[in-house]
């Protein structure tokens, strides 16, 4: 379970996230929505330990990200919103580095690297520098890195951006499988169709505040039944 308890993050001259609380139970695909600059990335960065939390706390399966740092991080698999990372490493070197960091056993890493990269169609390119990859390939190698150590909690920041339809479908299936195993998929997106297809629960955030949290049914009930998600989203975020 992820528990975000009244977190606040202030940057000079701006409060990015204010008193935000969320609870994400196990076995759910949780969609995190909001317009640009709403505080989504800031929240995710606090969840993953990238940004220090000014006030409040975040726990991952009971481990506080600010106190039991390594134990909490060990449980997370994070796909950042930018995939231009470790550009000077080759694909295989990156995956092996991640496997070393998460202490993935030799046999497991060998099988999984082969399986995952073949599924994503990047196996052949493993000996190339990540810098030479297309945006989609970079995204795939990072996702492969996350899946390699099989973390309990996936935190994915715009994971489908740049993926081709086949890979996008595959990732969505993987997300469903992961949640079906009683684990958590927390992801942010702008693509509302994906939310409708995939999410068990959603939170809509605007100007650092949660505007809504609940399942899709509750959200539609709260507003008029005939509204589509796009209209709902616009209505929720226009006055914030």
């Amino acid at each position, binding site marked *: 379970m992820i528990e975000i308890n009244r977190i606040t993050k202030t940057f000079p001259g701006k409060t990015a996230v204010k008193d935000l609380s969320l609870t994400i139970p196990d076995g759910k695909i949780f969609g995190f929505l909001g317009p640009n600059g709403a505080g989504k990335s800031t929240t995710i*960065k606090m969840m*993953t*330990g*990238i*940004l*220090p939390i000014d006030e409040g706390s975040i726990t991952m399966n009971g481990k506080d990200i600010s106190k039991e*740092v*390594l134990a909490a*991080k*060990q449980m*997370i698999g*994070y796909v*950042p919103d*930018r995939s*231009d*990372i*470790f*550009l*000077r*490493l080759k*694909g*295989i*070197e990156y*995956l*092996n*580095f*991640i*496997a*070393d*960091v*998460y202490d993935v*056993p*030799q046999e497991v*890493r*060998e099988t999984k*690297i*082969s399986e995952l990269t073949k599924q994503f169609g990047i*196996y*052949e*390119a*493993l*000996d*190339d*520098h990540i*810098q*030479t990859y297309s945006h989609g390939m970079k995204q795939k190698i990072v996702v492969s890195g996350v899946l390699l150590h099989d973390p309990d909690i996936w935190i994915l920041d715009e994971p489908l951006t740049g993926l081709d339809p086949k890979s996008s479908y595959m990732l969505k299936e993987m997300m469903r499988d992961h949640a079906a195993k009683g684990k958590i998929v927390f992801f942010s997106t702008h693509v509302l169709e994906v939310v409708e297809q995939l999410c068990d629960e959603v939170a809509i955030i605007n100007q650092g505040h949660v505007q809504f949290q609940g399942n899709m049914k509750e959200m539609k009930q709260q507003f008029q039944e005939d509204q589509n998600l796009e209209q709902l989203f616009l209505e929720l975020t226009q006055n914030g």
Partner: protein
Amino acid sequence: MAKTWLLIKTMVKMQLSTAGKSDLEKAGYGCLVLFAIPLGLLLLSILNSMIDTLYTSLAPTGNENVILGLLFVMMTFIFLFVSLSTVLSSFYFAEDVESFIPLPFQPYQIVMGKAAVPFLSLYGVNTLVLLPSLIIYGIHSASGPVYYIFSLVLWLVAPVVPFVLTAATIMFIMRFANIAKNKDRTKIIMGSLGFAFAIGVNILFRLDSGGTGGGMSEMVLEQNALLGLVTKFFPTAYFSSIALTSPTSIIGSLNFLAMIALSFAGILLFMTIGQQWYFKGVLGLSGGTRSTFKENDLKRRTEKRQVLWSLLLKEWKTIVRTPTFFTQILIQSLFFPVFILILLLLQSSGSLSTMASRINGWDDSTSLLVLFAFTIIGLGVNPASFSSISREGKSWFNNLYLPIPAPLIVTSKLLVSFFLNVLSLLIISIAILFLFEVSLSVWFIWFLASIVASWITSIIGFLLDFHQPKLNWTDEREVFKGRMIGFFALAAEALVFGLLLILLWAVPLFQSLTFASVFMVVYLTICVLLGQWYVGKVTKEKFSTIH
């Protein structure tokens, strides 16, 4: 022309902007200016005494214009050397070219814009050396106002031809040589060329310095013959020298006009070559090569390793595979030791060998002191250390979400810069052991002390970068360019090691090798312990707040 001017203005503004520079850096520039004043005065007095000596000895035979010839030849070399790296990085390595190519500009317009900053940077050294030298010469030769007007114009046009030659050669190589297929490899080869050029010129001069003098006496008698010899391969230096030798004569004026015409033709040539070759060279650069992963490689490539080893490999690969880091860190730290070694091997009777034989005559503690000081100055600041954090750029956040203990990341960074220092040290140690012929005990103590000193310099550089990292760069060169960190690292090292050296030199007890060694061990150990303690402290407090 208006568009070209707009591009030049924009590119100069973009590269020279102080936006994003911290107050500390700005203060650093202030310090640098303060330091530059006495240094400038020192340079002036050196130039003055050199020109004075030469003038007194050359004037009786009417060969004083050789001074001008030497001056212009020397400036040509400096311009060639400086523009080699600046043109390469501005024209081909800066990624920003991709944002200009789709805009409706002619290739020559973009190339003119790209040339602006490298060209302007030549005026720094031009103003520092050529301008005062010309004034000093003018005073010695009691020249009239025409000389000074000519001087000013020649000062203005002096960098044009060398710059055009370098730029044209580079554009030619990039257009026609097949090395441009791989951008990174090209960058590494061309980046190393600058250093090879410096070493090569030095070797050539040294090899060439013997064996002349036979026909010298006749040349001295013949008007301008000596000048002709000096400026044999440098027509611009010849024209400029003759123009300034007799500015009021027709010959002088003709040479002056020839120089202006040559510079003007140079600019036209540059624009033409730029128009023809620039895009073809720069557009041919690809990000890297593609290969196919081999199935039977998988087992070997997925071997399990210790996290620290994994981190070290990642750091090392980043340095070796990033052209800017390769040249600024690896080549630059190896440059000095390799340079020294080559000079020592080439010269059996040169100044360094004289120094070596002098060391043989010293007692052990003095030798140790001198060798240690020499190493500290030689190894100087380690770019790998003061770029530890900044090298990561916007990828730094990876260190924050991955479950790697912060001290382990810090250790990997310290170890990489330490390893690079040790590499240089090994080269120097060979030179010291075999060429300086010091006693084995002195060599051993010196080697140990230098190893420990390398760790200290790694800590100093790391801490400076840790406090003020530059992560928000778009081009790797920004990690080194326009940052005062190298200067601060040097100052901090001067403080730490300067105190040790002064004490070793001044305290009579340390005339004994044993006492000197013991003191060095104690002093350096204290420095290491203090450094480690402070690194641990700031890592705990600040690591997760770096963004």
